[in-house]
C-alpha cells in the first residue's frame, strides 16, 4: 500500500509525535508498504527533500506561509504538494493533526481517490469547531479519525458528533525497547518529573509536596527533567519552601537519557493539570517497571491503572500527592508490585507491534471501503 504521512514535524525532530510517526513509518516500510512523508522544516536547517531509511521526506514552509500570510509561499507550497501527490499517488493520507498545515492537504485533495485518516494526538477540548473552521472540515471530511485515548475520542466527538461512527482509539506506543529497572534506590529515593516545564504540567505541586515528604523521608530528592518558561518560578518556589537543596533542575535532557533517569527513580510523578491526551511519560515509566503517581485527568487514567500500575490522585491536590508518595516510599513491596504490573501492561496493551498492527488493519479497511 502507498501511504503518505502528513505531520508538522518529523525526524530528525525529537518530540513525541515526531518520533512516533518516524518509528511507525519505518515499521510500515519494513512490512513492505511504500511510505512517504510531507512535513515542515521546523526551526532546523533541513533540506527540502531527502530519503531517510528508504522513506521519501518532503519539507514545505507551511508555517511560514500561514503565519506570515505569504500567498507567494502558500501558492508555491500548494503547487509542490499537488505535484508530489500526483507523482506518489497515495492510497491513503495519514495526517497527524497538530497544526493548520493540514489546509494544504485539503486544498490538494479534490478529485483524489486517496482516503484520509486523521490522528488527533493532542487535546482539542475548547477549540472552536463551528462552520467555516479548518478543524471542523478536518474532522468531518476525514474518512476516519483516530484518537489516542478514550478521553480524547470523547473530546473529539463532542466537537463533531457526526463522526462518532468513524472515530476509534489507537493507544500510543513507544518503540524504545523494554528495559528493566536501572537500579532505583528506596534508601535515597528520587521522585522524577519529566516534561516541558509549564504550569499545566503541575511540577509545582511536586515541589509543594516535598517539605512534608522530607519530614517522613529526609533522604528524598526531586528531579525535574525538562525545561520551559515556568522554571524560574519553580526554582523560586523551592527556595521559598526551603527545599532547594533537595530539588534538581536537570534542564533539557536528551531523550535517549530519559529511560536511564526513569530507571533510577523510585517513583515517577505526572502531576498534570491539563487534560493529557495520553501519558507518554507514564508509559515510559511502566516500560521501565517504575510505579507512577498521576493525576486522574485526560488519557492518564487509561494508561495508569489505579492500584494496579500506579496511584491516581485528584488534579491540583498536593496533599494527595504527599500521601501517595509516602505510601509508595514506605511500602517497597507495593511499589515493586505496581512497577511489575506496569511493565506487563506496557508489553501487552501498549506494545509497539500491536500499535503497528492496528494501523495496518485500519489502512486495509479504509483502502477496501
Amino acid at each position, binding site marked *: 500500500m502507498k501511504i503518505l504521512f502528513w505531520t508538522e514535524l518529523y525526524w530528525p525532530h525529537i518530540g*513525541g509525535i515526531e518520533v512516533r510517526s518516524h518509528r511507525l513509518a519505518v515499521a510500515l516500510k519494513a512490512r513492505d508498504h511504500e511510505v512517504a512523508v510531507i512535513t515542515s522544516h521546523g*526551526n532546523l*536547517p533541513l533540506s527540502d527533500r531527502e530519503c531517510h531509511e528508504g522513506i521519501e521526506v518532503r519539507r514545505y514552509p507551511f508555517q511560514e506561509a500561514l503565519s506570515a500570510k505569504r500567498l507567494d509561499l502558500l501558492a508555491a507550497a500548494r503547487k509542490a504538494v499537488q505535484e508530489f501527490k500526483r507523482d506518489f499517488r497515495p492510497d491513503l493520507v495519514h495526517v497527524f493533526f497538530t*497544526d493548520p498545515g493540514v489546509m494544504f492537504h485539503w486544498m490538494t485533495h*479534490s478529485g483524489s481517490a486517496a482516503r484520509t485518516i486523521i490522528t488527533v494526538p*493532542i487535546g482539542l477540548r475548547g477549540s472552536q469547531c463551528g462552520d467555516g473552521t479548518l478543524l471542523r472540515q478536518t474532522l468531518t471530511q476525514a474518512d476516519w479519525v483516530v484518537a489516542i485515548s478514550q478521553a480524547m475520542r470523547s473530546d473529539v466527538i463532542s466537537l463533531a458528533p457526526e463522526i462518532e461512527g468513524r472515530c476509534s482509539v489507537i493507544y500510543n506506543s513507544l518503540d524504545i525497547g523494554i528495559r528493566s529497572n536501572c537500579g532505583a534506590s528506596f534508601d535515597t529515593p528520587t521522585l522524577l518529573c*519529566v516534561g516541558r516545564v509549564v504550569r499545566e504540567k503541575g511540577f509545582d505541586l511536586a515541589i509543594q509536596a516535598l517539605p512534608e515528604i522530607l519530614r517522613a523521608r529526609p533522604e528524598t530528592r526531586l528531579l525535574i527533567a525538562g525545561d520551559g518558561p515556568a522554571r524560574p518560578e519553580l526554582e523560586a518556589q523551592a527556595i521559598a519552601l526551603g527545599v532547594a537543596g533537595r530539588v534538581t533542575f536537570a534542564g533539557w535532557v536528551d531523550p535517549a537519557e530519559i529511560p536511564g533517569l526513569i530507571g533510577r527513580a523510585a517513583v515517577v510523578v505526572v502531576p498534570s493539570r491539563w487534560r493529557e491526551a495520553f501519558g507518554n511519560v507514564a508509559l515510559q515509566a511502566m516500560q521501565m517497571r517504575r510505579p507512577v503517581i498521576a493525576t486522574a485527568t485526560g488519557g492518564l487514567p487509561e494508561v495508569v491503572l489505579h492500584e494496579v500500575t500506579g496511584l491516581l490522585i485528584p488534579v491540583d491536590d498536593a496533599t494527595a500527592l504527599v500521601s501517595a508518595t509516602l505510601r509508595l516510599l514506605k511500602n517497597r513491596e507495593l511499589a515493586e508490585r505496581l512497577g511489575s504490573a506496569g511493565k506487563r501492561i506496557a508489553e501487552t496493551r501498549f506494545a509497539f507491534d500491536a500499535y503497528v498492527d492496528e494501523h495496518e488493519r485500519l489502512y486495509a479497511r479504509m483502502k477496501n471501503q
Partner: protein
Amino acid sequence: MTIDSSSCYRPCGENLASTIIDGDAVLVNLATGVYYSLDGAAGAAWEMIEKGRSVAAIAQLLSARYETTAEQALADVGNLVLRLLDENLIAQVETQPPAGAEPVVEQRLPYRTPELAMYTDMADLLALDPPMPGLVTAPTPERK
C-alpha cells in the same frame, strides 16, 4: 436577496490578498488571518470577478468551460456572489461594458458547484501548542 445578473463586483478591502493557483483562488484577510479557498469553477468565477465581469458573463463562461447548463451556472454564480458579499470579500461596482469573448474551450471540464471554503480558525490552530506529554524536545538552532 437576489442578484441582478447584469451587476458587476470587484474584490474589496485593502486587507484582502488573493492569488490564483492553477485555476483555484486562495484569499486571505490580512487583518483577521481568515483564509478562503475557491476551487475549480469557483476559482474561475473569482478570476472573472477580479476582471469586473458581470454575473451573467461569469455564468456564461462557466457553462462554456464546465459541464453544466447556463441556468444552473447562473444560479450557482448568484449564490457564490451572495456568499462573497456576506464575507465582505467583494463589493458591487458600476456595470462594466461587455468584454471580449473568453477563449473557446475545446473540452468541457467536470462541474462541481462553486463554493467558498473558509478557514476562520487558522490563528487558533497556529497557536496550538502540543503539550507533547512525555519526551522533551531538544533545543534547536535557528534556521539559516
